[in-house]
């Protein structure tokens, strides 16, 4: 595979993590600003007390110190409103985190202070300022102590990692299986792929087989659609680049589904209550990398795998709000939004929901930009990657050297959100492969203590507890196993990949009936991820992004039509004047008609494996043949000299 390493000075050969244990300069500045604002609120809150203003003002002032503290000043039954306010404040924080509702915590905090002011009578409870101050001091002490302990543990972990990484990185490189170019989908792979095809081939507007929980966080339909799209595009790129037919149709359907208003309308709300923008909720403008980054990668992978450039046409990706209002986009404008936001953001990385910067979504965004550059001959990733990586290291990497889950862009505060090396490594492999190998080395090292032999003596991963499935917020480890499987495949680590696949099969309710392989104890999102992970091999994601299918497949004949699910395509690859197919019956064995396109007009082709031994293309370069499908059926057509 040709070398494709965009990252220069951050990917020099040394595998050591460099981190000095201090917050990044932008993060530190935001945190100082937050502290300053809070200190100002405390001073302003003190003024009514010192100047002897009315009791109402004094209660309001105390309310500025801490959410609901004003009710302590009111005294009596109203003290009950203090814990109630804390609960509401926690809910407001949840709304802020979950849906970018920036105004919610402010509303609760200020609202509670004003409510306390209106309820206060002649004087405030004498002990309330002292109680509030003691409460704040205790809380601050706890937060400080916890941060100190976490920092100490993080730095110790960093030291340990720097000790083992040089050997582990070498070991990971030795373990890596060679990349395989020529291959076909196994019957199990085909059964897994049918899971994605079934969902992709249903009519636009119907979403059977999807989890419908909420449209803001990780179970949102948009992520399920994207992951199904990635799986299908990966299959097309590496196994069946010369098969379009229902495989391309399913991918286009998923893209069209994504444009339906229920999928993206979350942004109408988030831009209103997060950006205070009530007039222009364009989903591909400011922020929202959870849409532009993910969907850009989705559309880009389809474009790359199929060679179909329809989504580069103006208005081909139109988000219609109603009959009068629509946001006209295409692949270019999606990526323009990613690029512009990277350049405009002080952090370089930029938010999903207003204010919340998720590094993982920014990895999708950078990967989509790399893919776009290859497709359209631009150099956006090349010119922005150094700054992006520099900020990732400085602002979004913890003391142990791991990329964090998310950070508030407004306050600079890091919030707990699960993130692990295995989840970032495959993206990083697309633009900084040495760094990616280091990530995988860490992930592998962390996984090793969790490897166990099962009753059959085969290796599996045993994760503690019941797990959590981000696709439906229920218990389950399917998403984690799929993440390990996917990363292990990407780095050619057969041992971990087999163990992860086995764990998926054993723990997640594998079902095989009806010709469709799926995991009944997993969400649709995790199932989609498991499909992609199952069919992936070494460097598949990287090569899908940085190389795409060989040029010959875009010139040679394609299998343009086959009936689904009667004809399953395990391999379809052209070298230019021929087409190699491996087909399976999806339902009953028997005769099936398949149609070819992009043949040489009027050309004679030798056929093997079908009912006839030759075919002649018509003047449009198309022809059809009958094929007897019984189990694995290789078919080959080749232009006669």
């Amino acid at each position: 595979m040709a070398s494709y390493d965009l990252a220069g000075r951050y990917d020099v050969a040394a595998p050591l993590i460099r981190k000095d244990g201090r917050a990044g300069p932008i993060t530190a500045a935001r945190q100082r600003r937050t502290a300053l604002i809070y200190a100002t609120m405390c001073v302003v809150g003190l003024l009514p007390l010192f100047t002897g203003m009315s009791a109402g003002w004094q209660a309001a002032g105390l309310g500025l110190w801490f959410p609901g503290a004003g009710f302590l000043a009111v005294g009596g039954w109203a003290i009950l409103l203090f814990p109630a306010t804390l609960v509401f404040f926690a809910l407001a924080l949840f709304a802020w985190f979950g849906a970018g509702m920036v105004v919610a915590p402010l509303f609760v905090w200020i609202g509670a202070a004003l409510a306390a002011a209106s309820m206060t009578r002649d004087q405030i409870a004498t002990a309330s300022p002292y109680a509030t101050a003691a409460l704040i001091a205790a809380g601050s002490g706890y937060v400080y102590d916890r941060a100190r302990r976490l920092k100490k543990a993080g730095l110790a972990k960093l030291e340990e990692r720097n000790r083992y990484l040089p050997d582990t990185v070498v070991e990971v490189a030795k373990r890596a299986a060679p990349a395989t170019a020529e291959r076909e989908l196994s019957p199990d792979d085909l059964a897994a792929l049918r899971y994605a095809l079934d969902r992709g081939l249903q009519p636009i507007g119907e979403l059977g087989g999807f989890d419908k929980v909420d449209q803001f966080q990780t179970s949102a339909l948009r992520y399920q659609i994207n992951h199904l799209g990635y799986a299908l595009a990966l299959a097309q790129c590496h196994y069946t680049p010369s098969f379009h037919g229902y495989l391309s149709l399913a991918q286009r359907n998923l893209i069209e589904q994504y444009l339906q208003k229920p999928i993206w309308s979350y942004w109408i709300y988030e831009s209103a209550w997060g950006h205070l923008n009530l007039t222009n909720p364009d989903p591909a403008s400011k922020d929202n990398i959870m849409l532009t980054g993910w969907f850009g990668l989705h559309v880009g992978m389809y474009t790359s795998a199929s060679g179909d450039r329809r989504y580069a046409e103006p208005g081909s990706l139109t988000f219609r709000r109603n009959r009068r209002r629509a946001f006209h986009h295409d692949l270019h404008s999606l990526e323009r939004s990613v690029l512009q936001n990277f350049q405009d953001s002080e952090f370089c990385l930029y938010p999903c929901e207003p204010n919340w910067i998720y590094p993982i979504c920014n990895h999708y965004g950078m990967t989509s930009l790399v893919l776009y550059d290859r497709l359209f001959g631009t150099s956006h990733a090349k010119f922005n990657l150094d700054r992006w990586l520099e900020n990732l290291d400085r602002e979004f990497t913890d003391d142990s050297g791991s990329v964090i889950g998310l950070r508030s862009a407004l306050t600079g505060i890091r919030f707990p959100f699960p993130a692990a090396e295995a989840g970032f490594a495959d993206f990083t492999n697309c633009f900084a492969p040495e760094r990616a190998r280091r990530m995988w080395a860490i992930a592998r090292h962390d996984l090793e203590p969790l490897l166990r032999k099962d009753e059959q003596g085969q290796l599996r991963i045993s994760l503690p507890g019941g797990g959590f499935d981000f696709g439906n917020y229920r218990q389950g480890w399917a998403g984690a196993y799929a993440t390990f499987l996917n990363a292990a495949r990407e780095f050619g680590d057969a041992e971990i990949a087999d163990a992860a696949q086995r764990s998926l099969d054993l723990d997640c309710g594998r079902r095989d009936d009806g010709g469709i392989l799926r995991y009944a104890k997993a969400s649709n999102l995790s199932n989609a991820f498991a499909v992609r992970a199952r069919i992936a091999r070494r460097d598949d994601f990287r090569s899908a992004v940085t190389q795409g299918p060989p040029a010959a497949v875009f010139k040679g004949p394609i299998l343009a039509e086959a009936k689904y699910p009667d004809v399953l395509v395990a391999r379809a690859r052209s070298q230019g004047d021929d087409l190699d197919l491996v087909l399976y019956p999806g339902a009953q064995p028997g005769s099936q008609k398949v149609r070819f396109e992009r043949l040489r007009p009027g050309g004679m082709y030798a056929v093997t494996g079908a009912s006839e031994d030759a075919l002649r293309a018509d003047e449009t370069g198309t022809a059809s043949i009958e094929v007897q499908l019984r189990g694995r059926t290789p078919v080959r057509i080749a232009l006669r000299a």
Partner: protein
Amino acid sequence: MPCCAFAAFLFGQLVLGFAVIKRAVLGRSAESERQTNAAVEWRLGEHGRSTPSKTLWRPRRLAMPLFALAALLEIALFFGAIYGVRAHLGHAHHEVVEAASVR
């Protein structure tokens, strides 16, 4: 009594809020008890047509009446609470005046 009503109002709001959040985060309780996910059992019907499926956000038959009932209840609770607070404050003010006159 007004204080009890007010406390009940607050408690009711919290319970309602928790129920909504819990349902939003964890899904419906009956479903969360089940081990398997019905969505993954769905499959495309014969001849490329999808089997009957629930379309997105189609309101259930009783959704609107239930919503109206809940809204009415909320409004009643809200005004009840305001009345309770006013009555409570008025009563307290009356007590202060009485105490002052006795002294």
